């Protein structure tokens, strides 16, 4: 009798979440998936089953390929930087440094601001010549640069903004995790003469692993998911140099109104992300929970 109980309880707990998720994520997602095997219906033209056509189209779609490449660079650039910075910030803010309340605030505030507005303000920072960044670099004798108008710098510029916006967000989770580490551990280590760096490397860092796993998965997903700044600042340009996958999906779905192709793209995006996340999760989750 108790066995069944044990089986029922978790499902009851999961019920509200699963119902909502099914209704607003999974069922629509499955529909999306099914759509990807059809051609987009258009008014007078009904949907037609086209099998894997949409997927093979992708291979010859230069924009998709560019987006794929850009997104890979974007993820590789933003994720480690955001993780490292947020961890650093958390450690700073968790230490007894004077004015840490102010520091915490300055790290965290970018998170609170709406991305659309922030992107607009940053658009201005990147303005060639008199934008904040050129003004600042001008002090050191740098020439003005067309940051967002040059395919070589545009992606990097977006990445800087993304890191600025995200690091403080992840910092909060590291901060919370740091607070959970028993102070006697740092005491024991201090007694042993461990430097702060050593303690960080050998104790704090491993104990933060569950958080890092969490942050990493989220950072990766965000690197594929947050595109507000692309919409506002570059619209993927110039010449698709800053097109990210989801932005492309967004365009296909809401500007080109090609739902089927968008579905196919979404499926590929999801598959890639799922693979990434599950690999990380499968490999790391077991390892990071030492308790």
């Amino acid at each position, binding site marked *: 009798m108790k066995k069944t109980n*044990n*089986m029922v*309880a*978790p*499902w009851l*707990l999961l019920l*509200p*979440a699963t119902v*909502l*998720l099914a*209704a*607003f994520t999974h*069922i629509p*997602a499955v529909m*999306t998936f099914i759509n990807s095997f059809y051609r987009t219906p258009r008014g007078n033209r009904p949907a037609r089953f086209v099998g894997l056509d949409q997927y093979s189209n992708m291979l010859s779609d230069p924009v998709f390929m560019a987006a794929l490449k850009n997104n890979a660079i974007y993820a590789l650039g933003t994720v480690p930087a955001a993780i490292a910075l947020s961890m650093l*910030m958390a450690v700073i803010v968790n230490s*007894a440094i004077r004015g840490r309340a102010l*520091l*915490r*605030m*300055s*790290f965290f*505030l*970018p*998170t*609170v*601001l*709406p*991305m659309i*507005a922030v992107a*607009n*303000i940053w658009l*201005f920072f990147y303005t060639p010549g008199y934008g*904040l960044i050129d*003004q600042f670099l001008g002090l050191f004798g740098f020439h003005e640069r067309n940051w967002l108008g040059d395919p070589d710098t545009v992606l990097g510029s977006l990445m800087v903004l993304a890191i600025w916006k995200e690091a*403080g*967000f992840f910092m909060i989770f590291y901060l*919370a*995790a740091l*607070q959970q580490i028993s*102070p006697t551990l*740092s*005491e024991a280590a*201090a007694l042993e003469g461990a430097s702060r760096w050593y*303690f960080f490397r050998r104790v704090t860092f491993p104990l933060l692993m*569950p958080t890092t796993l*969490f942050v990493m998965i*989220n950072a990766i*997903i965000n690197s*594929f*998911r947050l595109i507000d700044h692309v919409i506002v600042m570059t619209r993927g340009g110039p010449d698709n140099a800053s097109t990210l996958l989801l932005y492309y999906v*967004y365009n296909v*779905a*809401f500007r080109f109104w090609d739902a089927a192709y*968008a579905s196919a793209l*979404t499926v590929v995006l*999801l598959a890639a*992300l799922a693979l990434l996340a*599950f690999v990380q999760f499968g490999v790391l989750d077991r390892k990071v929970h030492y*308790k």
Partner: protein
Amino acid sequence: MSAMTLSHHTREASFWRVLEIGACYLLGLLWILPLFYAVWMAVHPPAYEVRFELFAPVTLQNFVDAWNAAPFARYFLNTFALITTILVCQFVVCTLAAYAFARYEFRGKTVVFMLVLIQLMIMPEVLMVENYRTISKLGLVDTVVAMGLPYMASAFGIFLLRQTFLTVPKELDDAARVEGAGPLAVLLKVYVPLARPIYVAYGLVSVSYHWNNLLWPLVITNSVTTRPLTVGLQVFASPDQGVQWSVISAATLMTSAPLLIGFLLFQRQFVQSFMRAGIK
């Protein structure tokens, strides 16, 4: 590091230490700079957007212009209603689910968890048409609930809370269960209080996300009486005739003000909640 170990270091004030602290402050300054800049732009006439003059005339005109561009007062109210609804539901739904994942072993757990994680990766916009259909079948178009429903089972929240619950010492769970606490009581009396900092953090994140969310609310609502702030903010986001940075800055500050002020005011509580929940 405990507070005192560091205080010893401070006393020493070695060269490296000073350098280190300096670097910390520099990082902090760098981070806040864009915001300072936004404030500068917001309180000066547009002509001073790029010219830093200490005695540049200060004006609130930008705020007035921003305020008049849309029925912001009503939008604020709507946003508050939206945030509250979403937050409460998210806390409940996510807590229950996270608890199931963290402390129960049951068949299909991994699969269900992966299914939840999937939501992390799906941009809600992609599912907008389907969701619109669902909402309109439920007869909820143009309501606050409709804006919130797709977000109430937040995979992010479930994932986050699960991670946190996993770090709660097992012995506390044991103790509570021996004391006669059933699963729900254990959850409410042990896990939730111990995860308080995470709730605060998640709350902040969720609030700022939904405070800033635009497309879905724009699509699913039609009337001034339901629409959130961001829809108002959108008035400035159209670049056809060039962006007015002073006004955008003012509008950004104005719409984010409750968040900013809230954060400043509750900064102490916010931090204390971290401190207090710490396991000794």
